[in-house]
Structures are given as C-alpha cells and as structure tokens.
C-alpha cells in the first residue's frame, strides 16, 4: 500500500518561513536491473511531485531513476495565511497518490 508521510508545522506566525518534509513509499525501480535469469526489470518510478498551497503551486519536482526509493523531499515556503497544503505524486503504471496538511497562521 502506498502511504505518505507529511511533516508540516500545525501553526506558524504570518511571514514565517516553514520547512515542509514529505516521504512517499515507493520502490522506485530504475529499469536498469536484471533478474537472476537475465530478464530486465521494467522501470516503475514516481515521475513527478507537486505541492500546492490553497490551490497555488509552490513546489514541483521531476523525478528520475536516480532518486532513491521512498522519495523524500524537504523544501521551504513563506506562509501568509491559514490554509491547506496538497501534495500529489504521479508515476509509472498509473501511480497517483495525494495527501494534504493544514496550517493555522496567526
């Protein structure tokens, strides 16, 4: 089962720069490995990650097989209002997962 871990502070002061950490469980199969019998293992990776805050994109990443299994990202944003972060991972074989986290800005 795919599952996401999100770390966003629950509260912040207006204008604070906050760190967002995300982790999605995924094998990130590179497509460059072979089984013992010599068959190549098909690529199965997450290809893109997007974070939106109240509908506006604040961070996006293109992933390649060189991103380690269970992709982890940490990035920053300035918060000016309360709202909801939405996270979306899209990948090979129809992989699509999303998660969200709310923040209260005082």
């Amino acid at each position, binding site marked *: 089962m795919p599952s996401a871990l999100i770390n966003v502070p629950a509260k912040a002061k207006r204008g604070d*720069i906050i760190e967002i950490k995300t982790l999605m469980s995924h094998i990130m199969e*590179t497509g*460059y*490995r*072979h*089984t*013992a019998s010599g068959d190549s*293992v098909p690529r199965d990776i997450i290809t893109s990650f997007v974070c939106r805050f109240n509908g*506006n*994109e*604040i*961070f*996006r*990443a*293109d*992933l*390649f*097989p*060189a*991103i*380690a*299994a269970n*992709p*982890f*990202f*940490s*990035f*920053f*944003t*300035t918060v*000016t209002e309360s709202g909801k972060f939405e996270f979306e991972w899209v990948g090979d074989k129809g992989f699509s997962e999303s998660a969200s986290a709310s923040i209260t800005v005082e």
Partner: protein
Amino acid sequence: MDESTRREFLALAGGAAMLAVTLRPAEATPATMAAAIRNVTGGEPVKTGKVKLDVPPLVENGNTVPMTVSVASPMAPEDHVRSIHVFNEKNPQPNIGNFYLSPHAGRAQVSTRIRLADSQKVVAIAKLSDGTFWSASVDVIVTLAACTEDVI
C-alpha cells in the same frame, strides 16, 4: 593465411572489438551530462557560485545518498531561483532531478535522497529569475554502487 590478410583480419577484429565496446549498455558520460545540462541552459553560460551542493564526499551505500542544494538568493519576486537541476556523470541517465521553486519559497533550499551508481561528479545548476545559471559540483566516492545491481 599470408601476412597481409592476417593483418587485415586483425584490423577487422580490432574494429569489431571497438564497436562492441561502444555498444555496451547506455551509461551517462561527462559528454551526455554536458548534453543534459545544455538541454536545461539552452547553451547559456553557467557560472560557478551562489549554489551550495551538500553531498557526503564518501558514500558507503549508493542506494540512498542524502543531498541538499541551497542557493544564495533573497527569494523576492524580482530576484529568485526559478529552478534547480541536478546531474551526474556515471549513472545510466545523466539527470537526477529537477526542482521548480516559487518566489514565495523564502529559502532556496531543497533536500532529497539520490542514487549513485559509481564514484563520480554530481553537478547542481540553479536557474535564476534574471535568466542566469549558476552551478556547484562535488566529487563523490561510492563504495557500494546503486541502480544496476541484479535482483536476487
């Protein structure tokens, strides 16, 4: 077999061996990395500086290598980092990741975990809002390679 045909045969065999070498499985090389970088920069000059690339210089396990890229930038609407692109020389593909930031990021810093198939150079390039490109590179020694090992 007289001497001349033997020589020709050897030349042919040598050529075939050379061809076999060039037909080996795809591997990013400094040349393909340069091509991947040109795809991003469109041939614009890339200056060294502003970018800080944190990767451990000695890596025990190439399957998961922590990496942090930060760029010295005020991250203001008129002067910010648009994107950060990370490349390598010797993985099967030259790209590692592209990261697109917003001017509201506050701090131009991204961390993730990457795979390294061999001891090699890792390059990070930042595209700024004024259209200039800045880079940093790190030479990494990897003891256990990633990506291409067999599945057991």
